[in-house]
């Protein structure tokens, strides 16, 4: 597909300059005509542009799979436009899995395959062919030289062949009818090989991506310190299987988050920026197998064959004990809060449906390093828990859990509740809600981590293809194609005249030096004609 050659290139992939449509095409002829058009270089170029163009909207509009929250915001901001964008036929929030994006790149890949595969066959034949015959007049080539030697024609030709071969030419020795012997030499086949490897590797890369997308899965789960996770589709918070996913692809591992620690820079411009995260896991590859410990870090996933566990995020889970008006403990335990800013001010809610006589709900803000502003508003000034506190707004009433509509665990529906109290607690402190016996105790906090589990059976194939692409590119862009001919002709009186000629089929810059080097190599293997005879003459343009 890429004939990157200069000057002498022939567009193997191109259709004829101005394709004249024959007056009447048979059905088969029409198919052939369309195929020729599709696999032409010009079509491929247009498809390349279309793929680039089609990729643009996905970078400008929020996408469902990378940023669902911003998609929701977009719906709120553009209530008329967003539903149109979201239609299946438009799919502007799912650009990279939309029919039109897929159609564009699939057409490109078909065009590519239709061009590259026949070309690979052609190249295989060309590689086995002998170097092409010499032009009659070598001095007409871009580079040429004439030498004389006292060697006989055959000896000279053999010495020259060996000299040329040493500079990595493929050579062929051909006697001609008039008693001359010609060395035909050619090099640079790796250029086209590299070109083909690159394009075939692109196809393999697509295959690798497809295998991963079809048979793999990806899931995320939030795990609080001390809690465990068993790898099953139902245990994930968010699970995205491929179209051909089977449950048997789930590796039967279990893991426990024993401890999580985050370290932050505490001075300078970068104060508050995370330095490192360490999640200490205890895991077991299958039930009954001995458990092992692993220090899970960013950039260092836990690898179990094709399944990998990544550390994606972290946060605080404050622990509460809530008593109802009867004095009974109605809730106890950690509640994961969601970080809201870089100082990890985190919000969350506690729902206590079992509280008597009325249900209780807490809307709370956790501040790891707390500073109280005027009016009792707490803010966080550092992401590490140096002075943790929770600011709570307590509600009484109906949590609305029985309505059947699924509710977010991070939001409190206060439409049927009344605000009862607001207060700030440090760890260990308890606050009575209003006048009753109901109270909230802030027991402390635990850390939680957001883990992602990925199974991608196509990854290794994709990586190998990517490596082959780079290798192929280097060959196809750096290797230069050259042809050289050397003709030794008897000139009487024990002399042999040697004519050399060469041309660069790609990137002619530097060929003059290469040719000059060849000439001097030739000169060094050919004994000069004894003094008295004509001196060797070089003719270079």
């Amino acid at each position, binding site marked *: 597909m890429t004939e990157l050659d200069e000057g002498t290139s022939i567009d193997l992939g191109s259709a004829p300059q101005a394709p004249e449509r024959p007056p009447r095409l048979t059905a088969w002829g029409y198919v052939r005509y369309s195929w020729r058009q599709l696999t032409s270089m*010009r079509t491929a170029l247009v498809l390349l542009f279309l793929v680039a163009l089609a990729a643009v909207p996905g970078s400008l509009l929020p996408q469902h799979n990378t940023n669902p929250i911003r998609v929701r915001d977009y719906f709120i901001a553009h209530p008329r436009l967003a539903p149109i964008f979201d239609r299946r036929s438009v799919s502007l929030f799912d650009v990279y899995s939309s029919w039109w994006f897929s159609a564009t790149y699939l057409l490109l890949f078909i065009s590519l395959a239709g061009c590259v595969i026949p070309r690979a066959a052609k190249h295989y034949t060309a590689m086995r062919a002998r170097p092409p015959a010499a032009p009659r007049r070598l001095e007409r080539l871009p580079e040429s030289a004439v030498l004389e030697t006292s060697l006989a024609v055959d000896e000279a030709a053999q010495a020259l062949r060996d000299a040329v071969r040493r500079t990595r030419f493929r050579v062929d020795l051909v006697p001609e009818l008039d008693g001359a012997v010609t060395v035909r030499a050619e090099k640079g086949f790796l250029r086209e090989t590299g070109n083909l490897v690159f394009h075939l590797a692109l196809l393999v890369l697509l295959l690798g991506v497809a295998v991963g997308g079809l048979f793999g899965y990806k899931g995320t789960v939030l795990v609080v310190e001390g809690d465990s996770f068993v790898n099953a589709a139902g245990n994930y918070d968010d699970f995205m299987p491929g179209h051909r996913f089977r449950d048997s692809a789930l590796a039967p591992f279990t893991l426990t988050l024993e401890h999580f620690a985050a370290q932050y820079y505490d001075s300078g411009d970068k104060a508050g920026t995370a330095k490192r995260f360490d999640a200490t896991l205890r895991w077991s590859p299958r039930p009954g197998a001995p458990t092992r410990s692993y220090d899970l870090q960013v950039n260092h996933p836990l690898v179990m064959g094709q399944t990998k566990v990544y550390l994606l995020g972290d946060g605080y889970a404050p622990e509460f004990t809530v008593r109802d008006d009867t004095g009974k403990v109605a809730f106890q335990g950690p509640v994961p809060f969601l970080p809201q800013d870089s100082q990890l001010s985190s919000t969350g809610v506690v729902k206590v449906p079992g509280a008597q006589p009325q249900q209780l709900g807490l809307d709370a803000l956790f501040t790891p390093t707390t500073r109280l502003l005027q009016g009792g508003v707490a803010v966080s000034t550092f992401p590490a828990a140096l002075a943790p506190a929770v600011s709570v707004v307590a509600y009484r009433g109906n949590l609305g859990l029985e309505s059947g509509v699924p509710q977010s665990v991070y939001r409190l529906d206060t439409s049927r509740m009344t605000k009862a109290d607001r207060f700030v607690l440090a760890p260990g402190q308890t606050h009575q809600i209003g006048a009753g016996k109901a109270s909230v105790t802030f027991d402390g906090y635990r850390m939680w981590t957001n883990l992602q589990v990925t199974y991608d059976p196509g990854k290794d194939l994709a990586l190998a293809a990517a490596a082959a692409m780079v290798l192929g590119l280097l060959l196809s862009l750096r290797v230069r194609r050259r042809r050289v001919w050397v003709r030794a002709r008897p000139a009487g009186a024990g002399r042999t005249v040697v004519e050399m000629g060469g041309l660069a089929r790609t990137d002619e810059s530097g060929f003059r030096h290469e040719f000059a080097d060849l000439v001097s190599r030739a000169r060094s293997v050919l004994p000069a004609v004894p003094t008295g005879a004509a001196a060797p003459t070089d003719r270079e343009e």
Partner: protein
Amino acid sequence: MAVDLGLATLSDNLFGAALLAYAPAALGFAVEAAFGPRTATASVEAAVEAQSRQLVGAGGPPLAAGPVEPRPTARSTWDRVARVSVGLTILGFLLHAGSILSRGLAAGRIPWGNMTEFISATCLAVVGAYLWLLWREKARFLGAFVLAPVLLSMGLAGTVLYTSVGPVQAVLSTYWLPIHVTAAVVATGIFVLGSTAAMLHLMSLHYEVLVAQGKRVGFSGLARKLPPAETLDRLAQRAIGLGFPIWTFAVIAGAIWAESAWGRYWGWDPKETWAFITWVAYAAYLHARSTAGWRGKAASWIAVAALVCLIFNFFGVNLVITGKHSYAGV
């Protein structure tokens, strides 16, 4: 790890000194390009001759070849201006490299972890690529066109986008940072050069057409001092052909890093998307160069469009769109 403040200050001072060397160099190149005498390659007749010489396959004709109408005194003065500019560029390059090196030593890490450092390193790569072409292809005429955007970018990096020396966040402390970013920086430098040459190729082509038709030259007269279009075209192709595998490698190294940091090797993050678009655009350029009807003018326009994608990916994605690469701290 503590930041070495002495080295950090040294780095900032060297950065300023490099700017002070680049600025007069750019001015010198610009003045020489605008008012210097026509060189052999600049007069159209000579250009046509040079072009025909090239067509028979000779190596690149030396661009600073002796003038057709010798004007010894004028030439030596202007030549001296250009030579001083080259000297200043080399000096600036060394100071600039020193600035980046001392910044790295000050922070105790590879010095391209934020926008300021990334711009500085990329500008160094652009100047480095220019010096390489100067040495290999005698492409001195590119000086003003290359140094002007470098000065602008470095000015931005040193002011509005400035970040003082410091450590990087957790996701960036891996050996993939030097591998991925270095490849991206080097490829960007080479692409900028290549696309600049393609842009000049278009100017030169336009100028040659106007002259051949005997029309008034007007604004395109800027191209009078440029080498023949053919030479510029070849320069662009060589640079982009060199940059393309490096860019490919940078994207792949990024994918490998993304796989270990974010759990997927490709996720259409805006930076990834635009790196892909840039890659496709330069691939289209290389294909167009060998497709009948696209060679020449159309191909060079593609190289210019590719540069626009590259620049958008460089600045736009960090400043306008939020994505996973927005760590850059601006």
